[in-house]
C-alpha cells in the first residue's frame, strides 16, 4: 500500500525548480478557503455585534476567542501577550485543528506532511529567538555558555531540537492515525461497518484536538521559558 503524498501535477518554473500540486496542497488550500470565508463572515457581522451578545453566532465567536486568548495569556503571561503574538497563536491553533479535522471530509490531512509541520515548527523557532533576543539583549549570547563554557555545543543542540521535536510530534501522530485509517479502509467490507467511525472519532477528533492544543501550549511554553519573569 502507498501512503505517500500523491502529486497530481507539477508546474515547471525554471530548470529543476517546479511547484508540486499534491494532496497536501489541495487540503491546505481547502482549509485556508474555509477559514478565510469564516473570517470574512465574522468581519461582516462584527458591525451588528452588541455589547451584550444577543445572537448565538456572537456567543459562539466570543466564547471561542475568549477561551483561546485567556489560555494564551495564562501560559505566556499578561506581560508578553502582544496582539501580534496572541493573534498568531490563535491562528496556529485554529488552522492546525482544522487541518486535523479535514480527514473527516476525506482529505489527506495537511499536517500528515512533514513540510507543513516543519513550517509551523520553524515559525516557533524564529519567534522564540526574536523574543529571547528582544527581552534578554546581550544575555542572549551569554546564555549559550551557561552554566560553564563547555556546555556550548549541548545548548546549541537543545535549541535546534526545539523545532524538530515540535514538528515531528505533530507529524508522527497525524501520520500514524492516517496509516491506521488507510489499513482499516483496505479491509473487506464487513469490517468497514461502524468500525471506521469509532476510529475516526479517536484519531481525527480526539487525537487531532489534543495535538493542536499540545503544539500551541508547547510552543508558548518554550518561548515563556526563555523570557525573564
Amino acid at each position, binding site marked *: 500500500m502507498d501512503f505517500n503524498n500523491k502529486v497530481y501535477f507539477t508546474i515547471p518554473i525554471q530548470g529543476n525548480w517546479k511547484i508540486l500540486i499534491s494532496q497536501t496542497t489541495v487540503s491546505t488550500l481547502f482549509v485556508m478557503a474555509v477559514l478565510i470565508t469564516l473570517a470574512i463572515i465574522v468581519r461582516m457581522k462584527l458591525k451588528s455585534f452588541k455589547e451584550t451578545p444577543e445572537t448565538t453566532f456572537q456567543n459562539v465567536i466570543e466564547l471561542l476567542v475568549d477561551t483561546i486568548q485567556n489560555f494564551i495569556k495564562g501560559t505566556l503571561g499578561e506581560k508578553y501577550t502582544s496582539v501580534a503574538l496572541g493573534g498568531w497563536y490563535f491562528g496556529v491553533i485554529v488552522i492546525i485543528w482544522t487541518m486535523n479535522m479535514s480527514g473527516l471530509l476525506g482529505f489527506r490531512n495537511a499536517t500528515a506532511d512533514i513540510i507543513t509541520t516543519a513550517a509551523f515548527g520553524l515559525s516557533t523557532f524564529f519567534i522564540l529567538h526574536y523574543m529571547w533576543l528582544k527581552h534578554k539583549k546581550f544575555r542572549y549570547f551569554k546564555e549559550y555558555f551557561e552554566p560553564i563554557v563547555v556546555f556550548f555545543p549541548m545548548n546549541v543542540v537543545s535549541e535546534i531540537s526545539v523545532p524538530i521535536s515540535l514538528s*515531528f*510530534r505533530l507529524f508522527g*501522530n497525524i501520520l*500514524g492515525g492516517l*496509516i491506521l485509517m488507510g489499513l482499516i479502509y483496505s479491509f473487506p467490507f464487513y469490517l468497514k461497518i461502524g468500525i471506521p467511525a469509532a476510529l475516526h472519532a479517536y484519531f481525527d477528533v480526539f487525537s487531532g484536538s489534543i495535538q493542536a492544543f499540545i503544539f500551541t501550549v*508547547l510552543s508558548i511554553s518554550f518561548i515563556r521559558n526563555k523570557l525573564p519573569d
Partner: protein
Amino acid sequence: MASISNEAFVLGMSAVGAGIAVCAGLGTGIGEGYAAGKAAEAVGRQPEARGTIMSTLIIGDAISETAAIYGLVVAMILMFANPLVGKL
C-alpha cells in the same frame, strides 16, 4: 542463503529494523502509565483540582510521547519511504 538477492535482503532487514524501531514505545508506555496512575492518585486526594491535574498530565504525556513518535517515524520511513533501497 546464497540465493537471496541484495534487494530482498535490504528490504527484509528494513522490515526488521522498523519492528525494532517501534520498540521505542515500550518505555513510553510504562512511563505514561505511571504518570496516569499518579494523576489518578492526585485526583483522589484533591478532587477539586481535577482540571489542573488533567491538563498537566496531558502536556507531560505529550512530551514523553515524543520518544515513541520518533521511533514510529523511523519505522514509517523504513516501511514506506526506504532510503536504503536507492543506495544499492
